[in-house]
């Protein structure tokens, strides 16, 4: 456990301090996105096998009804976000840039969109039943990676979950959706945590929140105090990438996850706060994952907001609802500015893994002049994994993939801290993505 020099908050060693830009949206209450005419629901919104369609074109569906079931163990269910009709089952643009199978639902204009769902009481469930219920509810990790939640929650034989950690760090600049969820759904968060704890049986439960969200820390501490089981709310130093699982574990337990292993190998299960809230909503109200909270922000956006958006809503509609874009050529990103991706096409749907849509101007994103590496060592001091990005960058420029592997490039999780600090504007993480792909490709052969 490492403590910073200023103040006494726990954190991990190294890391960076990008400007936060959270003030743009952190005090804006979550708004519900109005229903739109057409929803596009890709069958692959999670890591793993695509879901299997169980509806036909022209079929009427209810809001919350399953339209595709899990296509394997590492796969989840998919539900209609509205009362409507299956309009098409075809190939559509996916936010990841590919064209992939999806189900389109045309909204029933005369429906009031009232949910008619039944709770799924977890009290009598077995662990296997719980895992299956989570899988069929369409639940994925809401932090952005969209890994099926039930797979994470399945604790293999021989391993135990000693520490359950709820991740409310939200260390990416601009993003405030987890913050708002914690403040506005504190009860559901505690309840979802308790449901999860019931099945994974941790010895200790933590909710980790970066210190820049004092309102969430106070509120959740209060709510947690009323509970019959102990939850420790841990304020962490504001530092990127504090929300990375490994960094959170370092900060709270002072332990490292061995290379190539999972947090469970050191007895830790980490889940996003949004996932816990969605769990509570599913088990108590029967609401599967048909909507999520996303941050729509950036200085090129008229009205930065936190929006509760039905999955499948076209991004363009969400952006327009937030007042639209105010500059001629903004940079549109999905996710945060440190790890997010450029999105050229706004005619793609919000999916389960969408945490934010950002429209940035030149004010935030500067094009960089590049210089040679001056061996200043800033990247070494930034890398949370203690890699040597300067050396790795040099090796990648020379195409020395094997040497890169010897220097542990495969451990790099592409947090981009190294590129962020490099005064010579060297595209370090960008070249590491290439290097890792090259190494994987060679292995595959």
């Amino acid at each position, binding site marked *: 456990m490492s403590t910073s020099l200023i103040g006494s908050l726990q954190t991990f060693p190294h890391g960076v301090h990008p400007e936060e830009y959270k003030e743009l949206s952190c005090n804006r209450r979550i708004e519900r996105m109005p229903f739109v005419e057409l929803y596009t629901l890709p069958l692959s919104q999670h890591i793993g096998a695509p879901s299997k369609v169980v509806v036909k074109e022209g079929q009427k569906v209810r809001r919350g009804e399953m339209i595709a079931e899990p296509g394997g163990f590492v796969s989840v269910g998919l539900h209609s976000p509205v009362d409507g009709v299956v309009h098409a089952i075809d190939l559509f643009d996916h936010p990841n840039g590919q064209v992939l199978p999806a189900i389109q639902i045309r909204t029933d204009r005369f429906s009031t969109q009232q949910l008619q769902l039944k709770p799924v009481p977890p009290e009598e469930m077995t662990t296997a039943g719980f895992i299956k219920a989570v899988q069929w509810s369409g639940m994925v990790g809401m932090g952005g990676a969209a890994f099926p939640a039930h797979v994470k929650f399945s604790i293999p034989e021989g391993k135990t979950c000693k520490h359950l950690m709820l991740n409310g760090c939200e260390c990416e600049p601009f993003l405030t959706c987890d913050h708002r969820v914690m403040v506005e759904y504190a009860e559901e968060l505690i309840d979802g945590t308790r449901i999860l704890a019931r099945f994974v049986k941790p010895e200790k439960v933590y909710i980790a929140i970066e210190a820049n969200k004092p309102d969430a820390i106070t509120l959740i501490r209060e709510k947690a105090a009323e509970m019959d089981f102990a939850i420790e709310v841990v304020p962490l130093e504001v530092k990127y990438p504090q929300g990375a699982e490994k960094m959170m574990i370092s900060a709270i337990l002072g332990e490292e996850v061995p290379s190539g292993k999972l947090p469970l190998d050191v007895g830790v299960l980490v889940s996003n706060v949004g996932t816990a809230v969605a769990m509570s909503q599913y088990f108590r109200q029967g609401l599967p994952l048909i909507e999520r909270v996303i941050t729509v922000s950036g200085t090129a956006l008229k009205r930065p907001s936190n929006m509760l958006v039905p999955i499948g809503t076209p991004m363009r509609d969400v952006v327009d609802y937030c007042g639209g874009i105010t500059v001629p050529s903004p940079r549109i990103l999905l996710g945060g*500015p*440190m790890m997010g*991706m450029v999105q050229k096409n706004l005619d793609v749907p919000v999916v389960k893994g969408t945490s934010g849509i950002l429209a940035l101007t030149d004010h935030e994103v500067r094009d*960089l*002049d*590049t210089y040679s590496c001056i061996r200043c060592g800033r990247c070494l001091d930034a890398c949370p*994994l203690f890699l*040597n990005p300067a050396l790795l960058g040099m090796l990648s420029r020379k195409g020395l993939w094997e040497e890169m592997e010897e220097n542990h490039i495969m451990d790099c999780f592409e947090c981009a801290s190294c590129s962020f600090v490099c005064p*010579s504007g060297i595209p370090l993480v960008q070249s590491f993505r290439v290097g890792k792909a090259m190494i994987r490709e060679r292995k595959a052969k």
Partner: protein
Amino acid sequence: MKTIISTSPFLHHEATTPKIMWEVVYTLIPVLGVAVYYFGLSALLVSAAAVAGCLVAERLFDKKKKAIGDGSALLTGVLLALCLPPGFPLWIAFLGGMVSIGVGKSLWGGLGQNIFNPALLGRAFLQAAFPEAITTWDLPTGNYWGVRGTNLAMPFFKGTPVDAISTATPLSQLKFSHEVTSTMDLLVGNVSGSLGETCGLLLILAGVYLIARKIINWRIPASILATAALFSGILYAINPQYPTPQFTILAGGLLLGAVYMATDYVTSPLTTKGIWIYGFGIGFLVVMIRVWGGLPEGVMYAILLMNAATPLINRFTKTRVYGHEK
């Protein structure tokens, strides 16, 4: 080259290589100011000549014609000037600048590629080629406008210019005639020596500023000075003939070297462990050379030697990666 950013990260720390170089140059303005205060216009002329040499060479050897903008050649020029004597012939200072950049940097492939600190390499060249000129010191005169006759010496004309007053630096006084300069004089800089090395106080302040701004790694000056102080302290304790630790630190170019030369990013190790080894080596070598070597001063060679060891140090001090055993 402008890169249009199309992949993350989209945010970037405000520090850029030219900004860093310029900031270091700014911290040298007061140092240069003090040099002018003590040595007059000569100080400025020597600096201008060395800087001009660096810039001309940078421009000449840089095929892409843009390296001059990164500020590093300017910095090298100022640093070179700061370790030259005030009465130094201008044409030699210019030549030294050309060698610093041409041989010290461009030959290696430009910024970031060289093994040796370019300013010190240029200085070492001058020491070898013009041993007389570089050890012709004079006392601070307080005469601002007086240009030293030696400054205007013409290329390759031998003969002692009329008004060359050669005095000894605190280090050579100690070495050759066992005279000790007072700590106070060393702190304020009222002694003879190279342009930038005489005022200890200012160099300490500049070092503190650069550390606070996270421009230089505190471990480098700290380890150099601690090692030098400790080592000379031990010697002094054994035999008070040897210089005191405070004299070791304040006299000569140790502070200038520890703050500005040894901290050069390019020629110092990358890893923290490597930096400790490097600093220890410099501190140790400085005292060794000063005490047992033939020369009164050893900072330049100590740093150049550890520069040479840096690639090796980098190779043998790998960082322990998260999640791996050592």
